[in-house]
């Protein structure tokens, strides 16, 4: 049994390590490119959201590379993601691909995994499972923290593109580690290199942008056309609200800090959105308000075309924008979106934000009114 799984940012580093250590023969889906998107879109329903098309492309390319089993998550709605696997299974059956979909739901996770392990004829060292999972989570967690750091500090890099190269190098190095000491060494190396890539912090603070929106579009850089990097190159310090490791810690583990923040978020969001509507609409509106309260200069909301919960957030953000005096830019992407068009919009937006700040400085001496 040769297993594969869909791409979502750098989560592959942790998932590949976990499956490989359990004894599976892991076939990695090739990195996402435009071909992946086009291939996926060709075999997907007409107006399905972009993550479905990307995943479909991942599966088809992975099957070409020799995979015969795919690990995928399920769900109970209202977001469509919970039903992706069923339709994808049917599409691959129509294409006569000899692939088995292993769908992990919240209520049959262990049972399904155990069944696959038995079928593959593996002897899994169950005692090692917990430390192994902890290590994989630590890898992904470190890369998420590094990405957050780079998004925040990219505006002061000496050479354009050096931070992104460092990140790619860090991902490769972390992927090769298999012990805590090796991981710590990589962390120290990267931290040292990063210091030399960045100019000292300027006197005038950069524009601070909060990046919110649908989780897959935020985490997968190819699909959001490297939005965070583009904003960094335009001189903005970007803060993103969601990372894969944070999601795992909040929903699968007991992280009291995450849970306390979630309660704060609920308190802040309820006047605008009375209850959760599925997806990450609640988080989008909540973080938008939180960033506004922390004095950010602007917000960028990113969503795939027809994403239902994010469209509700899109309707609510204009009121948040007026109430908290913070500009909001909504970017809707699908496989037809072009990088040049997005860059033009971002340049116009950042110009407008600089001008706004300039005007306020002239009027009151402070960047905010």
């Amino acid at each position: 049994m040769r297993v594969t799984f869909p791409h979502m940012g750098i989560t592959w580093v942790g998932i590949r390590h976990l499956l490989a250590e359990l004894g599976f023969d892991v076939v990695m889906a090739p990195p996402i490119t435009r071909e992946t998107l086009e291939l996926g879109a060709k075999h997907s329903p007409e107006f399905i959201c972009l993550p479905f098309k990307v995943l479909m492309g991942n599966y088809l390319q992975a099957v070409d590379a020799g995979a015969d089993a795919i690990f995928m998550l399920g769900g109970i709605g209202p977001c469509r993601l919970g039903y992706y696997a069923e339709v994808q299974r049917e599409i691959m059956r129509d294409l006569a691909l000899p692939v088995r979909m292993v769908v992990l739901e919240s209520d049959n996770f262990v049972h399904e995994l155990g069944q696959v392990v038995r079928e593959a004829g593996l002897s899994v060292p169950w005692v090692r499972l917990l430390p192994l999972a902890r290590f994989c989570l630590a890898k992904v967690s470190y890369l998420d923290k590094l990405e957050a750091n780079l998004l925040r500090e990219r505006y002061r890099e000496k050479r354009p593109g050096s931070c992104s190269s460092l990140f790619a190098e860090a991902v490769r190095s972390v992927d090769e580690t298999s012990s805590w000491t090796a991981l710590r060494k990589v962390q120290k190396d990267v931290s040292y290199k990063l210091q030399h890539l960045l100019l000292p912090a300027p006197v005038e603070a950069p524009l601070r942008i909060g990046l919110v929106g649908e989780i897959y579009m935020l985490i997968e850089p190819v699909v959001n056309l490297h939005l965070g990097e583009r904003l960094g190159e335009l001189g903005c310090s970007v803060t993103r609200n969601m990372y894969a490791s944070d999601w795992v810690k909040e929903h699968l583990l007991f992280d009291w800090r995450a849970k306390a923040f979630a309660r704060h978020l609920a308190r802040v969001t309820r006047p605008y959105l009375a209850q959760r509507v599925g997806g990450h609409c609640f988080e989008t509106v909540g973080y938008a308000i939180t960033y506004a309260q922390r004095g950010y200069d602007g917000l960028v909301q990113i969503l795939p075309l027809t994403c239902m919960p994010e469209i509700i957030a899109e309707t609510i953000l204009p009121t948040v924008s007026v109430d908290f005096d913070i500009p909001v830019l909504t970017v809707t992407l699908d496989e037809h979106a072009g990088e040049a068009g997005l860059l033009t919009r971002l340049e116009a937006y950042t110009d407008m934000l600089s001008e706004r700040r300039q005007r306020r400085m002239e009027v009151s001496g402070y960047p905010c009114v």
Partner: protein
Amino acid sequence: MRVGIPRALSYHEFFPAFEEFFRALGCEVVVTASTTASIAQQGIALACDEVCYPVKVMHGHVAALAGQVDKIFVPRLFSTESGTCECPKLIGLADMLRHSISDMPPLISPYVNMRLGRRGLRRAVWAGAKEITLNPWRISFACRQAHNAWMERRRTWLEGQLSIADKSTNVISLEKPSGNIAVVGHPYNLYDSYLNLRLFEHLHIRGYRVYTPQMLSGRDLVQANLQLRKPLFWSAGRKVFGAGAHYAAASDIDGIIHVASFGCGLESLLIDLVQRMARLHNKPFLLLTMDEHTGEAGVETRLEAFLDMLLWREEAGCV
């Protein structure tokens, strides 16, 4: 107290219940007229660009009620069937309306979550009624009236009555039909003749009987849904797929028309599933994806081509 009910979205499925409930509580109930071009245009202007067409039309209906009534009834339907949920846009509808339309009267928006069972329903009914009366006997009487009215409508649907108002479009009235067509989709797409560009009228003029998901009993729908490996977690999805699968397997149905709104989240997956069922049973299938730019002439052309195909199929003996 004047309570307004917009004739859009959940109205088309539950309207007798809503109207009777508020009437029995002693309110004057104002229901908007059927969708017209001006209501639709108003809705398109007010709503966010990317929302689906039926929700835009809902915005238009709510705007039409502003200034005429004291409160508008827009329930927060999280779940109308145990173990399922609704489309996120229906769940967050009240908030969307609040943020898109200014100068709106307050909304009566009880949170309906049938996943919580009878307790959830009781809480929802109480939340809906408490702004009008706190008398539990009156509320309980209103509930019974609403339930009776809705069961009566269910009964007429099961007998094949498409529209109570316009009896000429009823299934049971056509004695010698040219054929039987199943039209599946969300109730707000099917029973709003402005949204589906008078599809039922076109079918009736040509002498075809029309069958909809509401004409199937709960048991038929559950039976049809068993064909899925994993049950759909949207109640609306179960009805659309259940109807599609049932009618695909039914020998007396000549063809299936699936009416979907562009951008509908549920439909993006359902059109694939229903089409698969139609293909499995070798049933002619037509998908009509509608939005605010669709023209009636285009729909009529496609419909005529589809019906011609059914005739030729029958003549060639392929049935």
